[in-house]
């Protein structure tokens, strides 16, 4: 994919968030260029999820700014916020498919309700996204009838249908059986191959390192170290990064 844009697709600067007395994010900045994949690793409770949710204001940061293609997002303006969110695909750890809708309608509803697409057109688009994640034959199944891996693939199709400029993936395979992780990884790998810009939090180090342009090690609300995957995993400068990667690598025999 040619890089036609000047500057990053998404940029966040000095994001801070505290819940009560605990400061979860202590002034984080990062940016991602078109087609880039940034992977956030680090221990649970370190603020990875909160950071991703701050990026599309599911959690409203106390301080800090977010830019999409050079435009600063004013999250207090609902219309602007909703328009921004349409362009940022979000994948949750626990899928969050709409329980009362079948797979097809899960993908379709955003197109019809938010993008105001005609129903026929939306159905066609939704079906093609389900096909892309290999679930066309499950279109009529409800979330309760799908496996975890299938649910996560539907949720990816749902996000893709909105034509996002960037995707945020919050530990997309953490809630899955080991057997089901592979099918979701295959879909994500396919997205990256097609040039999707993304920020992903994950514990699947092996999988992530093969995709990442940059890896970011985060703990206690700060970025400890960032760099190319090889550097972070094999030759980290910071002792804490080394320690974390050494612990996680043996169990990261994922594909």
């Amino acid at each position, binding site marked *: 994919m040619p890089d036609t844009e000047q500057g990053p697709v998404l940029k966040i600067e000095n994001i801070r968030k505290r819940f009560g007395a605990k400061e979860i994010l202590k002034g984080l900045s990062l940016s991602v260029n078109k087609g880039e994949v940034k992977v956030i690793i680090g221990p649970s409770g370190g603020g990875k999820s909160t950071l991703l*949710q701050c990026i*599309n204001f*599911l959690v409203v940061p106390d301080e800090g700014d977010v830019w999409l293609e050079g435009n600063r997002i004013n999250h207090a303006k*609902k219309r602007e916020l*909703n*328009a*921004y*969110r*349409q362009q*940022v*695909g*979000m994948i*949750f750890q*626990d*899928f*969050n*498919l*709409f*329980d*009362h809708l079948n797979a097809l309608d899960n993908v379709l*509803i*955003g197109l019809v*309700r*938010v993008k105001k697409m005609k129903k026929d057109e939306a159905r066609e688009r939704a079906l093609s996204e389900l096909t892309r994640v290999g679930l066309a034959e499950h279109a009529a*199944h*409800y*979330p*309760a*009838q799908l496996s975890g891996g299938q649910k996560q693939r539907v*949720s990816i199709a*749902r*996000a893709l249908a*909105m034509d996002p400029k960037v995707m945020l993936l919050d530990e997309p395979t953490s809630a899955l059986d080991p057997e089901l992780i592979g099918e979701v990884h295959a879909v994500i790998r396919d997205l990256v191959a097609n040039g999707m810009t993304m920020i992903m939090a994950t514990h699947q180090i092996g999988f992530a390192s093969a995709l990442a342009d940059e890896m970011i090690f985060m703990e206690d609300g700060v970025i400890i170290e960032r760099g190319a995957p090889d550097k972070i995993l094999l030759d980290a400068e910071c002792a804490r990064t080394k320690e974390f990667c050494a612990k996680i690598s043996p169990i990261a025999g994922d594909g």
Partner: protein
Amino acid sequence: MEELAYIQQEVLPSLFQGLWVSILLIIPSALFGLLLGVVVGALRVFGRGPAALLASAYVTLFRGIPLVVQLFIWYFGLPYVGIYFSPFMASVVGFSLCSGAYHSEYIRGALLSIKKGQMLAAQALGFSRLQMLRSIILPQALRRALPGCGNEVIYLIKYSSLAYMVTCIELTGRGKILASHSFKYIEVFLIVGVFYLVLVTLAGLLLQQLENRLSLPGFEFHKA
């Protein structure tokens, strides 16, 4: 034999007229009540500031004052401030407002049971609050609230009998008139009771049908 003729020629025709009035009272009251309950329940969960406060005040008031007293206020009280309701209108207004307060609590409970992730997913797709409520939250919440709301409708069928207190002569009112003429209280009110029983049974079947129709995988009841 004389008894049977009395029942056939006087009691039943009169009670059927009353039954018809009862049905005309119950249907709009149930519909308006449910509608009101959805709006008030949603306001109590998702509303902010004065709207949420107003919704809470409404529930406190209409759940806290006996229905007969409410009906008396609508029918006998409001004329003092220049508002005149017919007995029928006063009853429908009274029933709807009372029923709405109870419905809203069932709806509120159901809304609170919706997982937060459902809302996060809708917001992340760019849904506005109203769109989210309409397309994601309410379709799930109404399914969960249905057994409770059905219960309220059944209850409404029976408290519609209070309409005769404000001179809207429905089923119970007819029974009262018949009985005080003939002094056959037992016969007349046993029949009135059977009429209500049939109404409630039919409503129960209808509600069960509705529940079955709206049932979806993942929303059905699992026997442990």
